[in-house]
């Protein structure tokens, strides 16, 4: 009888369990607070930028050229310049990156040479953007004699975005199960036939997402283009879709923001804020598209 009563008290709430539950709740709220404190700034900052930029945010701002030494007018040459740089650099980097990832995931055996290649990709990913700028200056502007031009800047950006394209393509390729490849080899298909028929079509969503994400990175970087081809001011027609030649310099949104925020005195307050909003908005929109593509393609999985 006494034993049964002792047993039933084992599971009753004691002071000990009460303390434990309290520490659990506290921990939960503490970690939640930490997360919020890291995430809330994003919303606060974006809101503040938009409010400050409001007077200048309109269609004219996008299509018009800068006037009065950047103090008035719009950002069209910088906007179209960024598009040039992004498209050209990705056209160069994406094929090389995808093929390199195909090599690393589908062909490379596990020997010392391929381990060095892996190390090289990791190191390339960690190189500071100013060192990329120095490289672009030494290699493309001077040694290759391209001079200060869109082509030098795009090549520099291409090498900067390459390692991340390689890494994300590898992940996409690795997500295709090995069993499919073995089934193809068993019927006498070569490695490339297997890749073309089964591996690539099913990895394309991951590859696409990876490339789109690099669009925003290429658009946002300043240092690599500052010393290789982006320029403070270039005379361009408003609304012109093809104003630049490849061997010319160009303006770019990121460079423009830096210039207008630090080098131009007495500028109307809302102009740098509006430039920041256009740059930030474009980058966030591209990234959101990539994420949406990823989510949508995940629902269409074939196995």
């Amino acid at each position, binding site marked *: 009888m006494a034993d049964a009563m002792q047993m039933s008290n084992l599971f009753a709430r004691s002071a000990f369990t009460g303390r434990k539950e309290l520490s659990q709740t506290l921990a939960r709220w503490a970690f939640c607070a*930490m997360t919020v404190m890291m995430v809330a700034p994003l919303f606060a900052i974006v809101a503040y930028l938009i409010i400050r930029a409001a007077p200048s945010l309109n269609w004219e701002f996008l299509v018009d050229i800068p006037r009065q030494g950047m103090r008035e007018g719009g950002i069209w040459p910088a906007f179209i310049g960024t598009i040039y740089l992004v498209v050209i650099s990705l056209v160069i980097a994406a094929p090389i990156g995808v093929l390199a990832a195909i090599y690393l995931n589908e062909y490379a055996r596990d020997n010392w040479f391929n381990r060095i290649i892996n190390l090289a990709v990791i190191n390339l990913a960690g190189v500071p953007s100013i060192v990329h700028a120095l490289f672009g200056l030494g290699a493309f502007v001077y040694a290759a004699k391209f001079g200060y031009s869109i082509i030098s800047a795009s090549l520099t950006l291409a090498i900067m975005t390459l390692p991340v394209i390689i890494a994300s393509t590898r992940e996409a390729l690795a997500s295709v199960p090995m069993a499919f490849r073995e089934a193809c080899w068993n019927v006498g298909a070569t490695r490339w036939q297997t890749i073309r028929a089964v591996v690539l079509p099913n990895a394309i969503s991951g590859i696409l997402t990876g490339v789109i994400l690099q669009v925003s990175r290429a658009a946002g970087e300043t240092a690599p283009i500052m010393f290789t081809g982006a320029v403070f001011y270039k005379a361009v027609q408003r609304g012109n879709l093809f104003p630049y030649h490849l061997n010319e310099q160009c303006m770019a949104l990121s460079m423009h923001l830096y210039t207008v925020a630090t080098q131009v005195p007495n500028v109307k307050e809302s102009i740098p804020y509006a430039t920041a909003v256009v740059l930030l908005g474009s980058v966030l929109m591209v990234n959101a598209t990539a994420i949406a593509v990823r989510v949508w393609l995940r629902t269409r999985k074939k196995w």
Partner: protein
Amino acid sequence: MNKPLDFHQRMRLPKRPLWAVFGEKALEALIRLCGVSAIIFVLAIFFFIFREALPVLFSGRFNILEFLFGVKWYPTSAVNVRYGTWALTVGSASVTLLAMVIAVPFGLGAAIYISEFCAPKIKEPLKIVIELLAAIPSVVWGFIGLTVMSKLIVAVTGAPLGVNLLNGGVILALMSVPIIVSIGEDALKAVPDSYREAALALGTTKWQLVYRVLVPAAKNGLLAAVLLGVGRAVGETMAVLMATGHAVQIPHSLVDPIRTLTANIAAELGEAPAGSDHYRVLFLTGVLLFCITFAVNMTADFVIRGVRRK
């Protein structure tokens, strides 16, 4: 039922056309070439920046020890030219340290929250927000430091100038947090569920589970997350250029303006005439930076490899 099998009526399978075979071999050669390209580019980067820096190393006017440890940086002086980068190195180190002191606890805390405590419905949107935070360009962060943060710091601390070590540290912290959160969350996700189930079956609370079981089990991955955050902070250029001010000096308080190795190159390269000593010393600073980030990234990868082997 099935037709009688007529295996004797075998069709000869044709041989593949020669152009297809050669085309495939050519494509595979191209693939291998692209695979090797990563090594080529890394070596090329080192080669070309070293090439621009080399002449000054062998000139009589230059002393490597003074370059690394000298405090005075007077590149444009007419009478007393000095190229000491120690103040810049301390600037880089101090802003990185401050950024990590803020980012690591918050970043790991957020990683733990997302991985263990968060309700599933909030998890996906939260991760998307963190991804978007990681996408903000560094020049926009620099702009924020220059405008928003600067006003905030002046208001809170009463310092004369809003662009300083503190400003740079906070901005860098906000920039590094997304990396720490996403890699830290991956590390925690990699801990097998059996650990969690075993611990909960023994009656631990979630909090005890986290600090007694999960963090020790994931410590390699978490360390790697921190190291990669450090790598990002050390290599950052535009944000610190705009947020930390323009003083090449060793900071004595949180609100002293400083300059980092990266920002220094960006600020002065435009003015240094090509081929001059100043120009070449800036490239040499680039070599120094390359070596530092190389070391940090190698360490991070080495640590991650320890995780994968388990």
